[in-house]
C-alpha cells in the first residue's frame, strides 16, 4: 500500500511505531497531489512548504514523547474555514488573496494536536452549491469519473479524500455540504450536531445551520478528527458546553438491539432505482447484525426544501453584507461614489448563485414579506424538529439515502438551480433540526458511489458512528479506490 492511501488510523500506527515519519507521509501526499491534482482539481491552494515544516515539527514533537491521533497527519481544509498564514477565499473572487488575521477554532485545535495542514480545498462560492461548479476558480472533478461533479459544497474535500490527495479533511455542512459530496465520492462524512463544533472562524453562510465536520476515508477516521475539533468554545455563543464523547472507544460495539428507522416520505419518485436498491440491501446488512428496522413518518418532509431556502438565504443575505470592498477583499477602485463602489465591488466580486441567494434572502426579510416567508419558515422549522423528535422516540437512528441520485455530469444541472437544489432533499432537514448525521458508501451504480446517511439525535455522534462502523466493517465499499 502506498503511503498516501493510508487512513488516519493506519498512518497513526505507523507513526507511533516509527516506521514512517510525518515528513515521509506528507511528502508522499504532496507527491500524490502533484500527480493527480491537474485532473481532480480538489484544491484552491496547496501549502507545500508550510506543510513540510509542520510535518518536521510534528516529528520533533513525537520524538520528544508526544502522541495524538492526529500528530503528523496531513489534512486538507475546506476553504471556507479561516487559516492564519494560508489564504482563505471561500471559492470567491471577493476574497481572492485574502489572508485571515486569525485561525479558526477548529484549525487551532488541529494545530495544537500537531496535524499538518496541506492546503485549502475547493468549494462552491461561500459554500452555496452542490457541485463546486459555483467556485469562482475551477470545478472539482469526481475522482470516480472525471466528467462528473464531486458534489458540494465541500466537493474539494471529498474529492481530495477519495483521490488520496490527503489523509483526511474538514468540510462544512449547511444543508448537506459534507454528506452529499461524501456520498458522491464514496467516502465518509460526518455532520456534527449544531453547537458541537465551534463555528468560530467558519465564514458564515447560514449561521443557524452551518456546522464543520470531518470527511475521511473511513468512519473511525471521522471519529478521531471529530473528537479533536469538537467541544465548547466560549467564543461561539451557540456552541454547547458538553463533554466530547469517546467515539472511537465504543465504535465497534455493534448494533444488536438497536432500532433503525426508515422515513417513508424519503422514498419518492425521481429516486434513482439503484440508490433505492442499495439502501434496501444496507438495511438487510444491519438486520443481519441484530438491528431492528422500523418504518417511521416525517410528515413535514415536503416543506424542508422551501423552509431551508428561505432561512438559509435570509441569514446569508446578512452574513455576506460585510463583503463591501472597503476593508478587505475585492474592491472596484474606479467607482465614483460610495454606493457605486458597493454595487461594483459586489456585482463583480460575487458569482451568480451567491447573488441569487442574497436577493432571495433579502426579499424574504423585506417589510411586508417577513411574516409570510421568514417567520412562517421558522414555524415550519419547529414542526420539522418535532417530526425528528417523534421519529427518534421510536428508533435510535434514521437511515436514508444521501442524495436521490449518484453524481451527475459537470454542467448537467448548472442552468437549473431548482433541479440542483433537489439533490439536497435528504440532507437539509437535518440541519433545520440541528441534529447529527453521517454519510458512508453503500454501493456503486455504473461505477459511481452510492451514499447512505445515518441520522441521529442531538449529540449522538458516537451512536451514529457505531451504526456506521458496524455496516462499514460488514461491507467493503469503503476499501474501493478510484483509478486515476
Amino acid at each position, binding site marked *: 500500500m502506498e503511503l498516501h492511501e493510508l487512513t488516519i488510523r493506519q498512518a497513526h500506527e505507523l507513526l507511533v511505531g516509527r516506521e514512517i515519519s510525518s515528513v515521509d507521509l506528507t511528502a508522499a501526499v504532496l507527491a500524490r497531489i502533484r500527480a493527480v491534482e491537474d485532473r481532480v482539481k480538489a484544491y484552491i491552494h496547496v501549502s507545500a512548504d508550510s506543510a513540510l515544516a509542520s510535518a518536521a515539527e510534528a516529528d520533533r514533537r513525537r520524538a520528544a514523547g508526544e502522541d495524538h491521533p492526529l500528530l503528523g497527519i496531513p489534512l486538507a481544509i475546506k476553504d471556507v*474555514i*479561516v487559516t492564519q498564514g494560508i489564504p*482563505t477565499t*471561500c471559492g470567491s473572487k471577493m*476574497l481572492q488573496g*485574502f489572508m*485571515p*488575521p*486569525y485561525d*479558526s477554532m477548529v484549525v487551532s485545535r488541529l494545530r495544537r494536536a500537531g496535524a499538518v495542514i496541506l492546503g485549502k480545498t475547493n468549494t462552491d462560492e461561500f459554500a452555496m452549491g452542490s457541485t463546486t461548479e459555483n467556485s469562482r476558480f475551477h470545478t472539482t472533478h469526481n475522482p470516480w469519473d472525471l466528467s462528473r461533479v464531486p458534489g458540494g459544497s465541500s466537493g474539494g474535500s471529498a474529492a481530495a479524500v477519495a483521490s488520496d490527495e490527503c489523509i483526511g479533511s474538514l468540510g462544512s455542512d449547511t444543508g448537506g455540504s459534507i454528506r452529499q459530496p461524501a456520498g458522491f465520492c464514496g467516502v465518509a462524512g460526518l455532520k456534527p450536531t449544531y453547537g458541537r463544533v465551534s*463555528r*468560530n*472562524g*467558519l*465564514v*458564515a453562510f*447560514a*449561521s*443557524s445551520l452551518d456546522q464543520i465536520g470531518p470527511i475521511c476515508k473511513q468512519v473511525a477516521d471521522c471519529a478521531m478528527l471529530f473528537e479533536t475539533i469538537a467541544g465548547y468554545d*466560549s*467564543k*461561539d*455563543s*451557540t456552541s454547547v458546553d458538553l463533554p466530547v464523547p469517546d467515539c472511537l472507544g465504543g465504535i465497534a460495539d455493534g448494533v444488536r438491539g438497536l432500532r433503525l428507522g426508515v422515513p417513508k416520505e424519503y422514498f419518492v419518485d425521481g429516486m434513482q432505482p439503484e440508490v433505492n436498491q442499495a439502501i434496501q440491501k444496507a438495511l438487510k446488512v444491519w438486520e443481519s447484525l441484530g438491528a431492528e428496522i422500523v418504518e417511521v413518518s416525517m410528515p413535514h418532509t415536503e416543506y424542508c426544501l422551501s423552509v431551508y431556502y428561505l432561512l438559509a438565504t*435570509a*441569514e446569508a*443575505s*446578512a452574513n*455576506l*453584507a*460585510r*463583503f*463591501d470592498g*472597503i*476593508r*478587505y477583499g475585492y474592491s472596484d477602485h474606479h467607482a465614483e461614489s*460610495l454606493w457605486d463602489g*458597493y454595487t461594483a465591488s459586489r456585482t463583480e466580486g460575487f458569482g451568480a448563485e451567491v447573488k441569487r441567494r442574497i436577493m432571495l434572502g*433579502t426579499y424574504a*426579510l*423585506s*417589510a411586508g414579506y*417577513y411574516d409570510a416567508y*421568514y417567520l412562517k419558515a421558522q414555524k415550519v422549522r419547529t414542526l420539522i424538529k418535532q417530526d425528528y423528535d417523534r421519529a427518534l422516540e421510536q428508533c435510535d437512528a434514521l437511515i436514508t439515502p444521501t442524495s436521490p441520485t449518484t453524481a451527475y455530469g459537470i454542467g448537467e444541472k448548472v442552468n437549473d438551480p431548482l433541479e440542483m437544489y433537489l439533490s439536497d432533499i435528504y440532507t437539509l432537514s437535518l440541519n433545520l433540526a440541528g441534529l447529527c448525521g453521517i454519510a458512508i458508501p453503500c454501493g456503486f451504480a455504473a461505477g459511481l458511489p452510492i451514499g447512505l446517511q445515518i441520522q441521529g439525535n442531538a449529540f449522538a455522534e458516537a451512536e451514529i458512528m457505531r451504526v456506521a462502523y458496524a455496516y462499514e466493517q460488514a461491507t467493503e465499499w469503503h476499501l474501493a479506490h478510484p483509478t486515476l
Partner: protein
Amino acid sequence: MEYVATIGMEVHAQILTQTKMFCGCPNELTSAAPNTHTCPVCLGMPGVLPVINRVAVEATVLTGMALNCTIPSFSKFDRKNYHYPDLPKGYQISQYDLPLCTSGHLDVTVEGDARRIGIRRVHLEEDTARLVHQGGVSLVDFNRSGVPLMEIVTEADLHSAEDAYAYLSKLRQILRYLGVSTGNMEDGAMRCEANISVRPEGAEVLGTKVEVKNLNSFRSVRMAIAYEIERQIAVLEQGGRVQQVTMGWDETNHRTLFQRSKEGAEDYRYFPEPDLPPIEVDEEWRAGIRCRLPELPDEKEERFTQSYGIREADAALLTQDLQVANYFEAACAACEGPTSPQTVANWVLGDLYRLLGASGSDIQACPVRPEGLASLLALVESGKINGTTAKDVLNEMFASGRSAEEIVKNKGLAQISDEDTLTEIVLSVLDQNPGPAQQYREGKLQVLGFLVGQVMRQTRGQANAQAVAEIIKTELARQS
C-alpha cells in the same frame, strides 16, 4: 390659532464597560490612537462571532429599573441590516421587538410643574465606527465599532423644548448616578434625536412627524426643538403641509435643514441574530441587579431636605451632581461641633462653586477635600476666624492645597477678639473720625457700619466684627 407640539425623544448612551459589546477590545475612546482598539470581531472580518458582554446587559437592565421599566424575562438580539462604511458587518446587532426594558417612566419638573414622561423601551446595541471626513477623503476609526450603546426611547409625552431639556437633564443625571454612562453630549457619549409634530389645539390626530438629528449639546436640543416647532407652525399657518422628513440641526446658522425624505424609508430587514442565544433574565438575576440600584436623585433630594434640614432649592442643587452630593455629605459628616448642614450647603454652593467654576475643575479634583472644608467651618464656628477671613482662607486652601489651620497660623489670620486690643483700636478710629462719631451720637445710627469698617480695615479684617460694634457703642455712649 393655538398649536400643540408633540415630541418623542430617542437617546443613545455609550455604556461604561471595560470591554466592547461583543469582543474583548478595550472600551476606551478618549486617549486611544485611531484603530488601535480593534480585533477581527469589531472589524467584521470573515468568520468571527459575537459574544455578549454581560456587564453591558446588566447596565441596561439597571437603567431600565431606574426608569421604572418592566424587565421582561425573555429578550433577544436582532440584526439591523444596512450598508455604510461605519458598519463593518453590514448589519448592526441591535434589539427589535423584544428589548431588555419596556414601559417605564421618568418624572421631571418643568418650570415648577411635575411631569411624567413615559419610557417606551430601553434596548442594547453596538455602536458604529466613527467617520472622519478630512481633506476630501473619509477615514474610519473602528475604536468606536462595537462599543456598547443603549437606546432609550420615550413615549410622545413631551410638548416643548423646555420639556425636552428637563427630560434630557434628568436622564443624564440618572445615567451618571448609576455610573452606566458619562452622559457627555460633547464627545458623543450621549446622542439624541427628537421626533416633533405640531397640531392645532383641539385636533384629535397628531401632525406629521419630523425627525431632527445632529443635536450635539443640550443647547442645540433646546434651540432645535423650539425652532422646529415654530417652523412647523409657520408652515401650517401659511396653509402648507408638513412633510415627513429627517432634518438636521445646523449649529452655525441655528436652523433645521432638510436631510432626507422618509418616503420609501429604509427597510432594515430586522431578523433574530442567529449567532447569539436569547437573553433570559430570571428572577434571581433581576434581583441581583436591583440590589445595585443606588439612591436616585429624587430620593436623595428628599432625604437632604428631611434629614439635613437644608432648603429645598439647595437640596436640588446639591443632588444635581452625585459627586457634589457625596462631597456635601462627607463634609457634613466631618463637621464636629455646631456647624449646620445649611452652612455647609452655603459654602459648597457659594464659594466652593465659585472657585471650581473659575478653575474649570470638577469637584472630584477639588484640592479642598470635604474634611478640609469642615475644619475651615469649625474655625469660623469657634470664633477663631471671621467669615471674611474664612473666604480668603478658602481661596488659599484651594490654591495651595494646604489646611485651614496651617494657613491661619502662618499668616496670623486668627480673629482679634481680645477686648483691650480692640478698645485701643476703636478709640484711635473714633479719634480719627470725629465727624461720624458725632453723627452717631446725634442719632444717625447707620454710621456704625462705617466705623466698624474702619476698624476692620486697620486690623486687615481680622477683628471680630460683632465685638467691635459692641465696643464702639459702649465707647460712644461713655463719651457722650
